[in-house]
């Protein structure tokens, strides 16, 4: 959490101006507005992972300290990626600019800047592609939608490719299936060739390379934090749950986002998981190296994403587990569900995941051998393996925010809802056009959850917040559940800004509240240590 920057008041920010500029987009220069972009990365983070052009720089300054041959580097980078990724080449060619995507982007809806229409965001790079890689563009230039790559064009790319959260909502509505996230990913890779990343992304990357997790938690810190949570669980339930670290021969390796081992409300998710695993007697272990489901390398380059993720399979192999259970993390699942198999798979040294409690085979995870925790828990409930008292969540009126990655990259829709409906008595859906595969982004994903870009985040999160406001006013919703650590970090700020009084929680916090454990004391506190209304606590 960075400290600077206070956004304008909600009343002002919600007056969104959709009037396009008078001049064409190529003749409208980019203006860097404070609050709408992040700090540039420090040299030390780039040096830590051997990335090019390591130097301290600021996007607010005129001189970005680019290498003299920067243009050649970018053009060569585009060429290589056109050859390597067929999708990229196709996406550069096939857009007919129909505009179906234009009003699907949360940044455009919340900000009104036409360059945040996905079609135009892509066009920023596409115009450069045309100039240097198509015959029409070479000869007819601007008339063919082509333009020179200049420093101003580069800065414009930087500004808008870090105003995209790679959420892929636009791609859902594209008749050609053009995936703007893929274009943004390539755009950011090109910028990274020149050392033009964000401090908020590169800090976690450097930490993850050193310790295995974004926060830089060292093994003894991970252990101490989890033991601290176990103390709290004992206070609440009277039960001392047990867990193990780096235990060889465990059946399952559990990999959660490190945010859950550090901040709130993530801590309450980890507590719910610790309680659940204890109650069902799961034979699992944490790894203090593979202790991060998230991967900010994915917001840097494909190579960096691979580099940071190798620890997960290598730890699974070293510890000799049968399969991997993954926690409530968002982009972890885009990677695990869509990339792992291609990078290193199939993971033949692991076994096809089978729930040791229910015997259910998770055939969808046959290749990667990684099961999502909501699939696992929903299956336990379905087989009647958990004793639940949903009335312990009666003080909560809950709605569910589908995370972009678990929904659009994986199709996890029903499992979290099934769990919530079994552990809560009051569940309400937001409008259909804002949930499941059409979910609106939190506005802070893909490494944009910094502090200095707070106006951007509040604008980008506006459509999501607006849908929450609807269920808040209609049903009295006071809790926004989700299954992503960036959500848990970003949504509290968004709710405080647009919908004060609405809290944020992970699904397994709700599970932990409702879970009836063998030998527990009468529960008077929820996992947050707050008195449970009507349960011996105060009303």
């Amino acid at each position, binding site marked *: *959490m*960075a*400290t*600077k920057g206070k956004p304008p008041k909600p009343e002002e920010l919600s007056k969104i101006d959709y009037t396009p500029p008078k001049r064409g987009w190529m003749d409208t220069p980019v203006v860097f507005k404070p609050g709408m972009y992040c*700090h540039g990365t*420090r040299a030390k983070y780039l040096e830590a992972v051997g990335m090019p052009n390591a130097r*301290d720089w*600021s996007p607010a300054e005129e001189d970005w300290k680019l290498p003299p041959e920067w243009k050649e580097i970018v053009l060569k980078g585009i060429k290589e990626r056109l050859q390597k990724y067929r999708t990229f080449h196709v996406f550069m060619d096939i857009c007919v600019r129909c505009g179906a995507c234009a009003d699907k982007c949360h940044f455009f809806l919340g900000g009104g800047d036409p360059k945040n229409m996905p079609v135009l965001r892509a066009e920023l790079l596409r115009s450069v592609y045309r100039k240097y890689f198509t015959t029409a563009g070479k000869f007819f230039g601007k008339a063919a939608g082509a333009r020179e790559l200049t420093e101003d064009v580069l800065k414009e790319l930087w500004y808008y490719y870090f105003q995209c959260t790679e959420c892929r909502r636009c791609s859902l509505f594209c008749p050609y299936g053009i995936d703007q996230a893929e274009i943004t990913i390539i755009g950011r890779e090109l910028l990274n060739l020149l050392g033009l990343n964000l*401090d*908020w992304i590169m*800090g*976690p990357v450097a*930490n993850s390379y050193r310790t295995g*997790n*974004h*926060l*830089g*938690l*060292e093994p*003894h*810190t991970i252990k*101490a*934090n989890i033991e*601290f*949570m176990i103390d*709290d669980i004992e206070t609440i339930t009277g039960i001392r749950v047990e867990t193990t670290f780096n235990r060889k021969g465990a059946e399952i390796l559990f990999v959660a*986002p*490190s*945010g859950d*081992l*550090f*901040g*709130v409300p*993530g*801590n309450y998710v980890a507590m719910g998981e610790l309680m659940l695993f204890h109650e069902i007697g799961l034979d699992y272990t944490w790894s203090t190296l593979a202790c991060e489901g*998230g991967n*900010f390398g994915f917001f840097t380059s494909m190579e960096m994403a691979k580099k940071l993720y190798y620890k997960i399979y290598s730890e699974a192999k070293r510890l000799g587990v049968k399969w991997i259970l993954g926690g409530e*993390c968002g982009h972890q699942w885009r990677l695990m569900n869509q990339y792992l198999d291609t990078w290193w798979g199939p993971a033949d040294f692991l076994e096809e995941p089978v729930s040791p409690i229910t015997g259910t085979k998770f055939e969808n995870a046959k290749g990667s051998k990684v099961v999502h925790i909501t699939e696992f828990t929903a299956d336990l409930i379905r087989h009647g393996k958990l004793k639940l008292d949903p009335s312990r969540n009666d003080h909560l009126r809950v709605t569910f925010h589908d995370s972009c990655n678990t929904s659009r990259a994986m199709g996890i829709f029903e499992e979290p809802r099934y769990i919530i409906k079994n552990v809560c008595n009051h569940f309400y859906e937001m409008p259909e056009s804002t949930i499941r595969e059409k979910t609106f982004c939190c506005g802070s994903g893909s490494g944009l*959850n910094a*502090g*200095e870009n707070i106006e951007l985040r509040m604008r980008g999160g506006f459509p999501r917040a607006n849908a929450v406001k609807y269920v808040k006013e209609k049903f009295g919703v006071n809790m926004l559940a989700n299954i992503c*650590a*960036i959500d*848990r*970090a970003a949504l509290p700020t968004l709710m405080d800004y647009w919908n004060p009084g609405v809290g944020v929680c992970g699904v397994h916090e709700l599970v932990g509240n409702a879970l009836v454990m063998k030998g527990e004391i009468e529960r008077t506190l929820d996992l947050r240590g707050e008195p449970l209304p009507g349960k011996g606590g105060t009303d």
Partner: protein
Amino acid sequence: MPYIEFEGKKIEVDEDGYVANLDDWSEGLAVYMAQKDGITLTDAHWEVINFLRNYYEKYQIAPMIKILVKEIGKVMGPEKGNTKYLYELFPDGPAKQACRYAGLPKPTGCV
């Protein structure tokens, strides 16, 4: 890199004002940083700052907010062992403002 001028020295900080090198920190610097925010550091503030620094020395990261809350409750009395009290001391949030005065780097990632 930006810097703070303090006692005739240039102290390197990041763009949000966090001290870049832990060794550049001094009690006087914490007082000076707080003054600039219009805050006079009391014994209660120092309790938090000293705990943060000791914890950092052992764990190389700021403590979880839950740990900080519990510790302050232990030392200052149970009625003060809550987030609300910490926000009274550090209006910008203990995770941010208190870490900054204590010379610790800001946590990054999904936080």
